[in-house]
């Protein structure tokens, strides 16, 4: 069995080779050749991944009705001690295969799309080199057999996304955004590193399979050792989750995500929709056995943070006017959903949340990538990010319009589109765990439908474009990926996830809850209808108010009263005050705290500068003071 999977290494080698080639020869290669190298390598990797998925799920994966984890290869790389070694390997199991499919599919489409989107930009070859590097890193992360390998690729993903977000490096906002993304995620990553050190020290292994073996018995001894009221295992897993929360933009480590929208749109589609941002969810899922058996308390925290982030981001999304920021907050909200689903999940027969989370990750990848790429096509055509300046685009961008609509329906959870099935499972799992989670999830479902259709109506309906408008549809290299993703958004929901991806590899019976489904669709429809009332027509309300003053009482009653009062309550009070407050809180308190830490450091630094006066005599005094300190420390411990 070992030998039959040797080809999997090419899934990693090909994109890396493309990066090296494009990186080294970037100035010499013609643009077409550079993009062809990247695209062909990722397409082959995608083909191999699909083949692997087919072989695994139909043939080699199943033993005794259970999907097994297989190591295609696992090479020792660095040796700490005899038992603790760092390896580089390729893990094949249901979730790694699913992620490979997601990553290669979305990458391929984004690469192809970028031919059109980046045409004529300077540094075109460099861009494709970075894209290949990113895909390589992401796949290395996905197939990691151990925590350390995952960490290395985790950081590589961070570095390549830093390069991609800062791609417009002569644009200051892009640069500061890429720096922010880098530093915030680094902060979280160091938590992750501490977690790894703790786990490996007590568990004596980096290997995922070893850590998770026997339902986490290997690390359960850590449960006994406590530190500040929580077991060391819980601390370690909490720290690991911090890393995941940073990458996946969970509150309060989400502040980099909206700013990261400064990067080119295909980058947002690749990194901030389908791949890098879900790495945190993947990480928790990868170690789910350990979380579930070793630290249910941490899993509860995961659920709380997930639920809160989902709600928080959904509310903010309702107030944004930058099309990409709306999508960014929407991503944060949906990932919160996935985290919440993981957090509420049990094991084996109670593992619906896990399956639902992975299912949602899978479907979300399609429709969110589609939304971002669609947004890219729109921005490409109208040269603005501000949805107030758009409107009536459905006549000019027919393909973008239809595909965007499909994505909006999918994310809102309207059957039979993909999001419906996965969202339904998440809500069912939440309902089993606690009504509060269900309530939040249900509310977020309604908000999601509202803000997505607010976006849809403002962009494609609302006012009309001026007659002389030269807006036209994007080239077919950009629209074909949209169509493919739209097909994915329609059909991805029919994949029988319960049979394929479960906590313990055995089939999980998922039932379809008619009443729940009806309720979910109901609130989504409410959201859509409300946004239709607000945004489908041009906003000539000032005019209508003027008209109504001299017009019929009936008009006043129906339009003025109904429309305006409702508008007043929702827009002014709910969105204007409540959402604005949350947005303000986000900007000032959360961001401000981070800035304050930086400021405090600088302040302390300026306070102690007097120590460094330049006078040798004073240095000698300090030196003697130092001897005294050393002496005191030494004797203090000696006397004890």
């Amino acid at each position, binding site marked *: 069995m070992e030998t039959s999977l040797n080809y999997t290494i090419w899934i990693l080698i090909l994109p890396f080779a493309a990066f090296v080639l494009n990186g080294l020869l970037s100035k010499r290669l013609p643009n077409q050749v550079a993009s062809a190298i990247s695209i062909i390598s990722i397409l082959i990797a995608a083909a191999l991944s699909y083949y692997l998925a087919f072989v695994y799920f139909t043939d080699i994966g199943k033993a005794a009705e259970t999907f097994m984890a297989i190591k295609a290869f696992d090479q020792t790389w*660095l040796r700490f001690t005899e038992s603790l070694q760092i390896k580089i390997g390729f893990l094949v199991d249901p979730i790694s295969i699913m992620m490979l499919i997601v990553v290669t599919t979305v990458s391929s489409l984004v690469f192809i799309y970028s031919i059109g989107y980046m045409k004529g930009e300077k540094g075109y070859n460099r861009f494709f080199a970075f894209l290949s590097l990113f895909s390589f890193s992401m796949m290395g992360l996905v197939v990691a057999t151990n925590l350390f390998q995952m960490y290395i690729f985790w950081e590589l993903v961070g570095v390549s996304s830093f390069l991609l977000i800062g791609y417009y490096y002569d644009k200051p906002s892009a640069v500061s955004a890429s720096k922010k993304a880098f530093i915030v995620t680094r902060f979280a990553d*160091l938590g992750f*590193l501490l977690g790894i050190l*703790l786990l490996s020290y007590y568990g004596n292994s980096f290997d995922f399979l070893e850590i998770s073996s026997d339902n986490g018995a290997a690390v359960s001894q850590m449960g006994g050792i406590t*530190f500040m009221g929580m077991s060391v295992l819980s601390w370690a897993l909490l720290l690991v989750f911090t890393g995941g929360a940073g990458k996946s933009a969970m509150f309060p480590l989400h502040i980099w995500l909206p700013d990261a929208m400064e990067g080119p749109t295909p980058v947002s589609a690749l990194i901030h929709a389908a791949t890098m941002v879900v790495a945190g969810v993947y990480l928790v899922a990868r170690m789910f056995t350990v979380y579930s058996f070793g630290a249910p308390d941490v899993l509860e925290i995961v659920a709380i943070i997930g639920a809160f982030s989902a709600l928080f981001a959904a509310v903010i999304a309702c107030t944004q006017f930058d099309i990409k920021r709306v999508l960014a907050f929407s991503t944060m909200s949906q990932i919160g959903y996935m985290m919440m689903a993981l957090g509420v999940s049990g094991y084996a027969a109670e593992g619906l949340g896990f399956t639902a989370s992975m299912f949602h990750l899978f479907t979300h990848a399609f429709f969110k990538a589609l939304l971002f790429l669609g947004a890219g096509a729109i921005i490409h055509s109208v040269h603005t990010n501000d949805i107030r300046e758009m409107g009536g685009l459905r006549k000019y961008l027919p393909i973008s319009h239809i595909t965007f609509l499909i994505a909006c329906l999918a994310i809102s959870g309207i059957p039979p589109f993909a999001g419906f099935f996965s969202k339904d499972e998440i809500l069912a799992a939440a309902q089993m765990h606690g009504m509060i989670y269900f309530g939040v999830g249900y509310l977020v479902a309604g908000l999601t439908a509202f803000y997505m259709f607010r976006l849809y109506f403002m962009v494609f309906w609302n006012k009309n474009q001026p007659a002389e408008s030269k807006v036209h549809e994007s080239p077919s290299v950009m629209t074909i990926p949209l169509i493919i993703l739209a097909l994915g958004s329609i059909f991805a929901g029919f994949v029988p996830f319960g049979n394929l991806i479960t906590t313990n590899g055995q089939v999980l019976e998922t039932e379809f809850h008619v009443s729940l489904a009806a309720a979910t669709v109901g609130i989504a429809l409410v959201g859509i209808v409300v946004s239709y009332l607000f945004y489908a027509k041009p906003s000539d309300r000032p005019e209508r108010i003027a008209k109504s003053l001299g017009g019929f009482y009936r008009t006043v009653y129906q339009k003025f009263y109904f429309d305006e009062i409702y508008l007043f309550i929702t827009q002014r009070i709910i969105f204007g005050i409540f959402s604005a407050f949350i947005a303000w809180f986000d900007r000032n308190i959360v961001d401000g705290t981070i800035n304050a830490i930086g400021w405090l*450091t*600088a302040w302390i630094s300026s306070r102690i*500068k007097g120590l460094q006066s330049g006078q040798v005599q004073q240095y000698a005094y300090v*030196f003697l003071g*130092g001897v005294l300190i050393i002496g005191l420390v030494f004797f203090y411990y000696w006397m004890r």
Partner: protein
Amino acid sequence: MSWSDFFLMQQELALILLALVLLVVEISLDTENKHKIIPVANFLFIPILVIGFLNTSTGSLFGDMYITDPTRILMKNILNVGVFLVFLQVSNWLKTQANNRNRISEFYLLIISSLIGVNYLISAGNFLMFYLSLELTSIPIAALAAYEQYKHKSAEAGIKMILSSAFSSGILLFGLSLLYAGTGTLNYGAMAIASVDLIQSMGFIFFFSGLAFKISIVPFHLWTADVYEGAPVAVTSYLSVISKGVAVFVLAIVLITLFGEIQGLWQEVIYVTAILTMTIGNLFAIRQKNIKRFLAFSSIAQAGFILLGLVGGSNFGTTAVLYFVLIYIFSNLAAFGVVSVIQNASDKENIYDYNGLYKTNPRLSLVMMLALFSLAGIPPVAGFFGKFFLFAAAAEAGMYVLLLIAVLNAIISLYYYLLVVKAMFINSNDQPVPKIESDFFARAGLILCTAGIIITGFISWIYEYMLNNSFGI
């Protein structure tokens, strides 16, 4: 003891021979051609490196005055590689500074003298030998710090270095006398301390403080920034990697062989100083405007991280220290190499002078960026692996609070390293440093450093090799 026993000291003897050969070459060159000693010295140094890596001898000489074993040879080799890189980087500066032309050989002779001291210091098996070689390592460097004596700052650096160095030597010597008074011997083997009494404790404290001066551990670090800033870049490079490296190695040897029994006590001292050193080094680094001062404080902070490897007193920790020092040599010398190239070409040494460097000198900027990433410990460059093993050593010793503080410091350091990267790549500048063509040796030096930064982490046998060779102390 037969004559062949002298070959145990083959590395030191080869260095002495090199010094003599260079003296003869210097005499035979006329005034116009003094610079020709540069390629001679650089190429003659290669066989010395080779001898070092082929050397596998184990044994002792002169009644345990001199000890050699694979671990010590490995330490010497690491530092010799560093000196070779320094040699490659200085050629441009030595050639272009007209005032130096007649004194080029001085530079090489003084560095080699100091290096001989470094080698003997590592191999010392007796505190008398230890003290003599320690002085031999630092006095030539104090002279070199004042090499550009026509510059006010260089002269000041020289005098500051010699004064503070004399002071610290006095303290250290006092510590050694107390240790002698307590044990009645200067020999490492006979001295090994089993339990502490007052005199020996005092001895240890003074000894440690004296050595801490060489490593620039807070609060014995104050001389560092002034000397680093004033001295020529080449000397600063040497001070920041070689002098610091040897002091760390010797501290490791002495702590483990002599004071192994009282580990519980010195552990706490290292613990406290590690925290102080990382934190203070970082806090000062943030506000520096001068790139040399900036790198001085960054090197202080790095020394704090190195102490994490010593705190457990384990073999694993020692390996981590050796490995980190090698990576630190590559990273720091790459950074100083770029600083040196730029200072030679334009005489600029402020961080804001680096604004827009990427536009005019993309390759130098990339090298600098890699070097700073490595110092900050960002994967996948080698610096990350170095730090990782140090962190792992602290985790192994169960010092989680220390580990947490170290990680926080790593984040702070990331911030200020990125400031320089930002300056080079992002900030705009009306008058950026013009395009620089560096000479063969400087280029070779930077290429070697960059290669080291990239591959040392990934090529696992380098770490394996160190792991297999660092159990000898």
